[in-house]
């Protein structure tokens, strides 16, 4: 899975890493149990500080997306907790995106089709 980091983005790099790994797990590019690179290797590849990658992994671990241990490094969790709800922070973010879309003239139908595309039609 290829991740894209923008050094000049307003979003901190550790969050960019976290977000793209979450998206990768969600759309199946990263499978359950898949090995992730070590903190050091990923930091070297990206040319960022090891603390930045460590912070991203720590966040992913806290949120229950990955497991880390000394022996096996970082892996995608086999079973990710199905909370069945969106967090308040994400709800606010979604609200902001929908508001901006409405203001720029995007129809509800377009937003729905976009959600269908991202979520995957069942």
């Amino acid at each position, binding site marked *: 899975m290829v991740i894209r*980091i923008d050094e000049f983005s307003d979003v901190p790099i550790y969050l960019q890493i976290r977000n793209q790994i979450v998206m990768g797990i969600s759309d199946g590019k990263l499978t359950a149990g898949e090995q992730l*690179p070590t903190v050091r290797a990923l930091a070297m590849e990206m040319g960022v500080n090891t603390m930045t990658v460590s912070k991203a992994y720590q966040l992913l671990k806290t949120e229950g997306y990955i497991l880390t241990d000394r022996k096996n490094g970082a892996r995608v969790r086999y079973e990710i907790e199905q909370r069945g709800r969106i967090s308040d922070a994400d709800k606010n973010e979604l609200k902001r995106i929908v508001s901006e879309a409405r203001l720029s003239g995007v129809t509800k139908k377009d937003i729905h089709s976009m959600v269908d595309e991202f979520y995957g039609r069942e």
Partner: protein
Amino acid sequence: MGKIFDITMFGTLIFVLILEFMIMFPKKWKEKKMILGVRNRKEFHDGEAEKETEHIFDSCRKQMLISSGMIVICGAVMFLLDSLASRTFFWVILIYLGIIASSLSLIRGNREMKSLKRKIGIVSAKGVVYTDLKTAGAVHGLKPVQLIVPCVANALILVLAILLDMHLINIGNSINAGTFAGSFMTLTFFMTGVIVAWCAWMMDNLRNEVISDDSDINTNYNRAKKKVMAAFAISTLWINTIYTLCALFITLFMGPELVMIISVLIYAVLIAVCLCVLFSGNMKIESRYQKEANVVADDDDHWIMGMFYYNPEDKRLNVEKRVGIGATINMAHPAGKAIAVVIALMLFSSVVSLSLVGVIEGTPMSIKTEGNMVICHQLWDAYKIPVDDIQSVELINDRSNISMIRTSGMGTDSELWGNFTVDNETGCKVFLYRQVNSMLKIKTSDGLYYINSADEDEVKSCYDYIVK
């Protein structure tokens, strides 16, 4: 000897120019990853942009052909120069000029390609980095043991050389054992091997490039490139190790410098062959994978003149080169700045030291007697021999039958200066002007001295003074 030197330098110059030309101006530029230090994009392959790209490419190619031709003519003129010191100086300058001349066409081409990029509306995506989670830190072409074994073998040869020089072991009748010439030479090759091994390890750990959104393509591409580099490093290390053993044998058991020069030539040719294999392998890989590349990481703006990488946001010290093969340094990195200064100083000092050799050679050698001392002088006092310490002195009028093998010091067309093995006697101090045939052989408690002067009368008057 001088002719062999000239032919070697001329051959090196032509090899470097041809290699640079082939790397910078490949036949099928559309299939290459880079074009004049700018990332090759599909936008350059259509309509007006294609014509402009071809025009830039052709004019830069012509510029390099003309400058290379001029450099080659200057190289041919070098055969007419007399003094070896001045020829060495001008050869080094000429090789530097060759590198600068080819860089000038790259600088021009890079500037024009960047402006073409702006003209056709490609917005710079400076600061965007792509990383493949599958390849990160996982693709290698080398195993540490492949580097360690030839280095250890080289270290054992170094130990053997030291033991021979310290007379702790004896193999046959060595003419140079005890002078430490073999040990120093072996140490030089051992250090070369260590540097090659370190560079190979560094190259193997470089960032894996992302050329496609398919992880398998990225893995195969990076693995292929690292395997080619690993094969080059391993073969170079083994050539270096085997040559170290041969050179030690030549230094200890064979006298003439000519044998050494021929063996160095063979060594250089073998390394050049390995380099050609590396370049050809790399070019094939680039052409093969360019068709499958669909991710373009636009970091052109971080490359100053297409050659120097400067990116303060990038924490890495080493990055893959844009033009040619190997790695270069990130000049924004604190260590990168220090390395750049050291390299600049080394280049500058090579020119200064060669100039100094030229000045030394231009200064006449003289011997004088002052305050009960015999002083050998050229630019500064080379040797001071107290007359009281002289055990015997001999005036030799014809030195053509005396063999002299240099251990350390200077040996040019006009003079010999330093530590030599003279007629199988090691550790002799030599200060001789080659055009004058007479010389003094002085025996002191410190060892043997063979000295003369550019003025033959000075030799005789010095002899008279010592005898008195």
